[in-house]
């Protein structure tokens, strides 16, 4: 199955990119939160791209996977904090996050993956909203009261460790998830999964006739993407912020952010989400500082402009430019 090492060169720019980002965060004091926010955007885009970019299916309710992931970690800490499990609790939380998002993705997959285009987008919005109202309506996990577990973490790990967990290690996990998402993307691209996904993205009926079990490959990409989102929610939202409210973790604007990031960078490319995440994160951050209260008004027309005039995204354009040069094998 393994291809020559050369085929995996594009992971180098990814590694360099995240390495530089991580380095800045560690070396420049007082920028870690910004760096971790950027890493969150990159990871979000990377995980979303794994499904959306490769299959062409727009999951508008994608944030639900981050939501259940957040709940996975929250449930673990909230209910197990006094069992003396120590850091195993974090591991359990990550596993729960992965399990919850897998289960939800299987359920959504069974219903929605048969649908195409706009129908799929609407169905996934329906799953996201429906799930939130179920949590609120049936009072699951405290319903709309949510869970606040900063105290639980301090009780379980001690003040210093709890602080380090939410202010540092949660972000390190986000970096990990981002890199894992990139690795998975590249692995898929270079193996049968990727070719199957390319085929079904271009023409699903033709792909079926070519002997591709489209449901299976869609589901593989969907579940992978969902698990990554679940882990991201567990680290960036639960472990870092130590609280969860249903309205907050199922907010659709995170899906919109993911779409913007992927489009800015270039859908279906490996480097796109990183470039897109950086552009989006940095410009958002400085707009919030320079023009507080007006950034959405400035951002919205710029997004329209980019979609209409540069639909391939930054990396898409770059890819065309480096075609036939030695850089070709690094940029996909």
């Amino acid at each position, binding site marked *: 199955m393994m291809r020559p090492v050369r085929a995996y060169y594009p992971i180098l720019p990814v590694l360099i990119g995240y390495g530089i980002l991580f380095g800045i965060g560690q070396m420049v004091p007082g920028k870690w939160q910004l760096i971790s926010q950027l890493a969150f955007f990159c990871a979000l885009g990377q995980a979303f791209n794994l499904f959306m970019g490769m299959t062409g299916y727009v999951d508008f309710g994608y944030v639900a996977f981050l939501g259940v992931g957040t709940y996975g970690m929250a449930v673990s800490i909230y209910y197990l904090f006094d069992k003396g499990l120590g850091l195993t609790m974090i591991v359990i939380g990550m596993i729960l996050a992965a399990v919850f998002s897998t289960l939800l993705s299987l359920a959504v997959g069974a219903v929605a993956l048969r649908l195409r285009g*706009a129908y799929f987008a*609407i169905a996934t919005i329906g799953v996201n909203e429906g799930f939130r109202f179920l949590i609120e309506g049936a009072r699951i996990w405290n319903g709309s009261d949510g869970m606040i577990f900063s105290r639980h973490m301090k009780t379980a790990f001690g003040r210093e460790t709890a602080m380090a967990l939410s202010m540092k290690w949660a972000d390190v996990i986000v970096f990990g998830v981002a890199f894992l998402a990139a690795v998975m993307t590249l692995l898929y691209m270079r193996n049968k999964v990727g070719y199957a996904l390319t085929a079904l993205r271009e023409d699903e009926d033709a792909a079926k006739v070519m002997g591709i079990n489209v449901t299976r490959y869609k589901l593989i990409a969907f579940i992978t993407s969902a698990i990554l989102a679940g882990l991201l929610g567990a680290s960036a939202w639960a472990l870092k912020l130590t609280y969860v409210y249903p309205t907050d973790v199922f907010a659709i604007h995170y899906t919109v952010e993911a779409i913007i990031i992927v*489009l800015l960078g270039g859908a279906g490319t490996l480097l796109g989400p990183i470039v897109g995440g950086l552009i989006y994160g940095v410009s958002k951050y400085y707009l919030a500082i320079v023009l507080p209260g007006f950034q959405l008004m400035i951002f919205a027309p710029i*997004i329209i*402009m980019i979609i209409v*005039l540069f639909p391939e995204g930054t990396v898409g354009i770059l890819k065309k430019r480096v075609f036939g040069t030695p850089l070709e094998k690094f940029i996909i």
Partner: protein
Amino acid sequence: MIFEQLSGNLLQGLVLGSVYGMATMGLSLIFGVLQVVNVGHGAFIMVGAFTSLMMFQAAGVPPVLAIPVAFAIGMALGMLFYFGALKPLVSPSGSGIKSLDMRAVGMGAGILVALLVVMRFLSAAFKLHFAITLFVAIIFLYGFLLYIYGGRRQDKAPELATLLVTFSIGVILEESVKQLFTSEARGFNWAIGKLDLGVTVLPYTKLIASFGSLTIAVLLYLWFRKTRAGMAMRSVVEDDVGARVCGVNVDWQYALSFSLGIGLTVTSGVLLTMFIPVGINPYMGGPYTLKSFVIAVLGGLASPYGAFFGGLVFGLVENGSYTLFAQFQGLEPFAMTRFFSFVMLLVILLLRPTGLLKVK
């Protein structure tokens, strides 16, 4: 007791449902013709609500008379956004350029800088916030680039581009209205009496809103069936390519149906203020967008009359299921009605993606 409540709720649901149905017709029309899901739908409803509010507050015009004004505003906005943002993405004839080279980008950047400098002075002169003038500058730049280069039709995952564009249009509308009117929740009071039915009470304003929705739905139906323009548009819904072969200007039909859809949506905002004349604010549209999706699917997504029918069903189900869920301990019935409506959405998408009404 329960039956009294249930019948009262169902009656209310029917009246509300007709307005919801009307509010979804525009969404369905746009999807039917352009295959675009308008994620900014709710923002246009908000524009309608503000139209109604402003006319009432400024001149005491009853909301019924605001309908033609709202419709005209909607048509105009529809044309603006179609030609400004959507046409390059969806137009069947494609448009303009093949690629945007670095020289062009550099030129654009130069113009932006020049505009910024001009705008900086203008904003000082007119005492406007710099961000507002920056916004205007970006729109100008965009218009310029679009005029020269045209943009490209999206072949891969076209939903992605159109979803994001319509979403951004919604954000632009919301933020502009926020700048104009602040994010305060507003309202007005147009009381013309009530009808007491025993099981429930219905103000006449609600009945007028419901009747108005029905009238507009019937008018739209007649327009589609009896006029040349309507039939041309219907032909595009049925068969895009076939219509073109038969000499229908599909490009123009796209523009027309988009602006007609927006016109209907803005109008429905006025009708909604007759139903609920309070809580009008720039961000009020969000929940209506989600509701409209469910309703549109109930009606078959691409069919405006189906949407009207879907609205009625939705109103009945949402209000009726409240009584049902209220019988269970430990549940929050109101949230459960929402849950139920989304479950209904999924079931219908699975079993009958063409909607409850048999369309084809």
